[in-house]
């Protein structure tokens, strides 16, 4: 079996965090899920700065971003990542409640790898998170930079 990789989850809503973790746990898809509660924290984690300055080196296999977060929102994190040479190739998935066309268009313009609307029904939500985890954390080969740093 493949070695499970780290997942970064940026989500401000505690309930959503709990449900997402429950869904990932159900299929034991991620050995480590790092949860940050807004875009600023997500950025600090990715750049190893601020309160994450001491974290172990390496980047997650995938970043799951909520769209609406306090301080710095998901689109802003995505925009900064794509402009940063170290992070530009890091797989990023929008995991959000919004199915608004404008959000979709903007996310894809900024170069998001996938866009998933959280289904209202929990079972569907579990299925979606499972599919995400299975694909990004297991099946997908991350770009070399993430592997090198994770190793």
């Amino acid at each position, binding site marked *: 079996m493949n070695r499970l990789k780290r997942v970064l989850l940026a989500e401000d*809503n505690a*309930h*959503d965090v709990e*449900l997402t973790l*429950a869904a990932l746990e159900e299929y034991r898809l991620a050995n480590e899920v790092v949860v940050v509660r807004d875009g600023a924290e997500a950025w600090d984690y990715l750049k190893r700065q601020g309160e994450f300055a001491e974290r172990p080196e390496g980047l997650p296999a995938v970043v799951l971003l909520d*769209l*609406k977060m306090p301080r710095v929102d998901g689109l802003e994190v995505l925009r900064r990542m794509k402009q940063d040479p170290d992070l530009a190739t890091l797989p990023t998935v929008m995991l*959000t*409640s*919004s*199915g*608004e066309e404008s959000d979709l268009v903007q996310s894809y313009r900024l170069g998001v790898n996938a866009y998933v609307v*959280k*289904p*209202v*029904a*929990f*079972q569907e*939500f*579990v299925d979606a998170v499972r599919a995400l985890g299975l694909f990004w954390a297991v099946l997908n080969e991350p770009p070399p930079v993430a592997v090198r740093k994770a190793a």
Partner: protein
Amino acid sequence: MVGYAQGSEALGRLGGTTPMSPDTAFAFFALAAGLLACRPELGIVGLARSEGMGGALVRRLLPAALGVPLVLGAMRYRLVRSGWLQPSTGVAITTATEMVTLFAITWIVAVWTDRLDHARRQSERAAAEQSEFLDSVIESLPTMVFVKEARELRFVRFNRAGEVMLGRPRSDLLGRTLYDILSSEEAAWREEADRRMIETLTEAVTSEEPILTKHLGERTMRFRRVPIFDRDGRPAYLLGIGEDVTELRRSEARVAELHRELEHRAEQLQASNRELEAFSYSVSHDLRAPLRHIDGFCDLLQRRASDRLDDQGRKYLGVIAQSAKSMGQLIDDLLAFSRMARADLNRGEVDLDKLVRDVGQELAAQAPGRTIDWRIGALPAVSGDAAMLRLAFVNLLGNAVKYTSTRERAVIEVDASLSNGEVVVCVRDNGVGFDMAYVHKLFGVFQRLHRNEDFEGTGIGLANVRRIVHRHGGRTWAEGVVDGGASFYVALPGTVAVDAGDSLRGAA
């Protein structure tokens, strides 16, 4: 010369002191004639050349007055000398002949002059009539007309409409310039257009000026000026036409005001559209999150603590989860409905026949175990938004499938007819129907005529159908009988594509 002609030596030497030979006399005559001819506009020659009546008389009478006595005198001299006539008889005959000849010539010239005079009087009368006619035309023109001479800009003409307009008689203006009537400052700017036109020799100059009238207060006049040129191409007069454009300008101002108001409204509408956009955004994002939590934690509770709940408790949990799901469905439907209103209409040719058959097949596949008799007639191609029209028919046919679910054998018919430039598509079923008393509620948002336990639904389907059809400029209506089936009609106006006639004839 007369002496020569009559053989009189005494005439040959005038006064007996100046002897002159005939050729000398002729030379003198030629010299005199030459002198006269070199200044033709002066003296007798001038008169003889004149175009007037005097000239005509001189040209006709002078040759006779000079020629007749000369000829008759010469004849008498020859006849008396040759002895044909006694000198006394010669004088008598010559005198009589002269009298008769001069009388005849005078008479002829008088008759001719009289005739000429008559013709002249007639043409003068005609000219006067012509001028009177032009006068009355100018007087009767319903717009202000004035004429100024081009040098000092004095009024030489001013018509009745102008008098009425200004509320002052033309005598106030005629022979005067604007400087005589107005302050020099006002006159200067009012004459500016006149001067500009005369100086630049422009064809026409239009200006608009406020004018204080006696009876109507301040009016806006539009003046058009045309130069009248003399034979040398210099402007001799200036013809002006003044129109009262007060009402026109007022209504233009009103139109402009309405336009601004409309723009303002459009802005407001755009603002409220943006608000609506923001609202549906937050509905889609914020309202769905708690629902997801309700459903998610219900599920987790069921998975992890189900054994600690009794049947009642598990049932409650199921109801909570189900309610959260149906509220999620309602929100999704409502958002789709509002998007339908905002989305652009992508018009193209839509083959209704294929569209309806496809939708029917899909729905049939989703309802296995049902016996449905689809009777789809030939449908025309129409112009419209394919995705929207498809959604409309998904709703209509979906309803037909849903409300015939209690029938052992469902019959769903779709056909089209052409009337008054509209394509009317009818979807008919043999389902549970509805009470016509509530037909007005049928197409409303969240309006349902059946209990959810009997037939599931959010009540947005037909509202969507109506909205889609309205956006195509069409109409919808329905007929139904309780337990006797329902018919839904969609009329799309003037949207028949080119080849629609054939498929419609096929349907008939």
